C-alpha cells in the first residue's frame, strides 16, 4: 500500500529540470544500457598528506564525455596531525559529498512534488576515533562510527511534507547508499 504525494501543477522552480529527468527515465526504460555511467577521478600526490584530484571525463549514454571545465579537489590533514592543513581531510570530503548528494536530491524531489525551496542547509557531522587508523585497537574501526545530518529547510510545505522530502532524498541518494551499504572496492597497482 502506498500513498504518494500528488505532483502539483504549480509553477515551482528550484532550478531542477524535472521534465528532462522524467524523460530520461522513459529513455532508459527503452535502452537500459545507456544508463550505465562510469565516473572517475585521478589523484596526484604532492607532498606529505597533500594531494589533488582532477576530475573531468566520464562515460555515460554509451559514450565518453569531456567537460568544458576540469575540476580539482585537494586534500590534506590538519596541523594536529602534523600536516600542513592546506585542504580538508578525505573523510571531510566524504561528509561534504553526502551533504551535497542529499541536498541536490532534496531540491529535485521538492521540484517533483511542487514544493518551492527558499533555503536549505545540511549540517553534517562524523565521529571518528583515530586510534583506528593508528592501528592501536582492532575493535575500533578506521572510519566514521556515526554520521549525523541535520537539515535546516525553509519551504512552502508542512513539516510532514518536509520530513518526507528528506526521507525520499535519502532513499534515492547514491552517496547515502554507498555509506550505508557495502560497496566492492578493488585497488591495484598499474
Amino acid at each position: 500500500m502506498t500513498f504518494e504525494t500528488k505532483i502539483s501543477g504549480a509553477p515551482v522552480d528550484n532550478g531542477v529540470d524535472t521534465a528532462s529527468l522524467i524523460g530520461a527515465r522513459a529513455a532508459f526504460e527503452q535502452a537500459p544500457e545507456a544508463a550505465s555511467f562510469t565516473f572517475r577521478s585521478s589523484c596526484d600526490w604532492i607532498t606529505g598528506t597533500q594531494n589533488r584530484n582532477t576530475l573531468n571525463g566520464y562515460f555515460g549514454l554509451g559514450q565518453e564525455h569531456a567537460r568544458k571545465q576540469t575540476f580539482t579537489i585537494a586534500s590534506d590533514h590538519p596541523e594536529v596531525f602534523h600536516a600542513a592543513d592546506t585542504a580538508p581531510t578525505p573523510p571531510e570530503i566524504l561528509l561534504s559529498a553526502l551533504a551535497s548528494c542529499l541536498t541536490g536530491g532534496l531540491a529535485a524531489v521538492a521540484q517533483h512534488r511542487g514544493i518551492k525551496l527558499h533555503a536549505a542547509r545540511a549540517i553534517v557531522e562524523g565521529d571518528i576515533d583515530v586510534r583506528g587508523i593508528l592501528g592501536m585497537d582492532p575493535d575500533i574501526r578506521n572510519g566514521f562510527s556515526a554520521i549525523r545530518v541535520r537539515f535546516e529547510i525553509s519551504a512552502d510545505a508542512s513539516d510532514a511534507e518536509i520530513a518526507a522530502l528528506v526521507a525520499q532524498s535519502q532513499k534515492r541518494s547514491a552517496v547515502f547508499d554507498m555509506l550505508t551499504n557495502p560497496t566492492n572496492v578493488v585497488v591495484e597497482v598499474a
Partner: protein
Amino acid sequence: MKRIQTIVIGAGQAGLAMSHCLSERGIAHVVIERGEVANSWRHERWDSLRLLTPNWQSRLPGFAYAGPDPDGFMSLPQVVRHLSDYARASRAPVEERTRVTSVTIDGGGYRVATDRGDWACRSLVIASGACNLASLPACAAGLPDGIAQFTALQYRGPAQLAAGGVLIVGASATGVQLAAEIRAAGHAVTLAAGEHVRMPRHYRGRDIQWWMDRAGIHDAGHDAVDDPERVRRLPSAQLAGTSERRFFDLNSLQDAGVEIVGRLSAIRDGQALFSGALANCCALSDQKMNRLLATLDEWAERAQPEGLQGIERFAPTRVPNPPRLTQDLTRGKFRTVIWATGFRPDHGWLHAPVFDRKGRLAHREGVVAPGLYALGLPFLRRRNSALIDGVGADAAHLADHIAGTRGRLAA
C-alpha cells in the same frame, strides 16, 4: 489431444473465480490443477498462517462467507474449506492432479501439455499463483555452511528449528509474523528490515480492511498511481490475521525482545553486513502509514460512517541507536536463517515471447497476448488484485474479454 475453448491453469481463488465467470457466460472450459483445489494453501504456507483479510472480505463471484464469525480470520484449513465449497457450488470443472509441463503457441491458440495428456485451446488463463517460488537475495549464496536456512515456503513452524538464534531476513507480513512466532517459542530473534509497510490492524475501532474497502483504496486502479510497477514491488503490510494485537510492527517485536537490524546488504568473509539506512526505512514507513491514516480520516470526514472512534496517531518506530551493522556468522549467534524476502510466480513452463527484460510476465491489466490472460498477480488491475476479495472483479473483466473475442485472435 483434447480440444476445448478455454483452459484455466490453477484451481485457487483466481482459477475458481474465472471458472465461475466463464460458466456464467457459457464458455466451455476446464481448470487444470497440479494438486487439489487450493493446493498452495494446503501445502505451501506455514501452519499458523491466517488470512490477513477478515472472513466477510473473502467474496468471490457468486459466493461469500456465510459463517458465524464475519470479523474473524480464516485459518488455512478454513481457507481450503472455503475454496472447496466454492468449487463445488460453482461446479468448477477441475482436473485435479494434472501438472502442466509446457504451454506453447499453437496456430490460433495454445497447446497445453500436462503429465496426463495434451490439450489445445483458443484461450488460456494463467491463474497459477503469484507466490510459487521464494525470491532470495543474491547474498544468500554466501551463507556459511552450518547455518540452517529455510525460505518462507519451506517454513512450517518453530518445531522445525534447532535451538539457538534465528535471523529472519525481511519485514513484510511474512517476516514479522515469523519473527513474533519464533521469538514466542523462545529463540533469540534478529529481524533484518529494509523498506517495509507499517499498518495497524484496526483503526478508530474498525479493522483496517474495513477502511480499505469502504474508502475505496482497494479498488484503486492503474490510473490512480504514477507507477504501477512500483506498487507491485511493495512488500505486504505488517499485518497478521488476528484482532487481538493492534500491531505486528517493529515496535511490538522489539517489545517482545526481537533485535531489529537494517536490510541484509551483503555476506562478506563470513560476516553479515546490515544496512545503515534502517532509520530512514523506519521514517519512510511511519510517514507512509500516517499518510494512509490521513487519507482514511479525510474519507471519514466526508462519508461520516457511524460508530467511529476518534482520530489516532501512533508513536514513531523506535530505531536502535546504533543498530547492529555486522554480525560474524561463524560465531554461532544464528543457527538458522529464514528468508522472508518475497515470492514470485513460476511461469517456467510457458514457452512464448511474453516476458519482460527481468523475466516477468508482461501484461496489460491481465491481457498477456491474444487469447492469453493472467489473473491473481499483484496490482494486475487494482490494488486488491492478488487478494481473494479482489480477484473476482478481474476475473469478470477478463471473462468479458474472452467472451467478446470468443477465442478469435484477430482482435
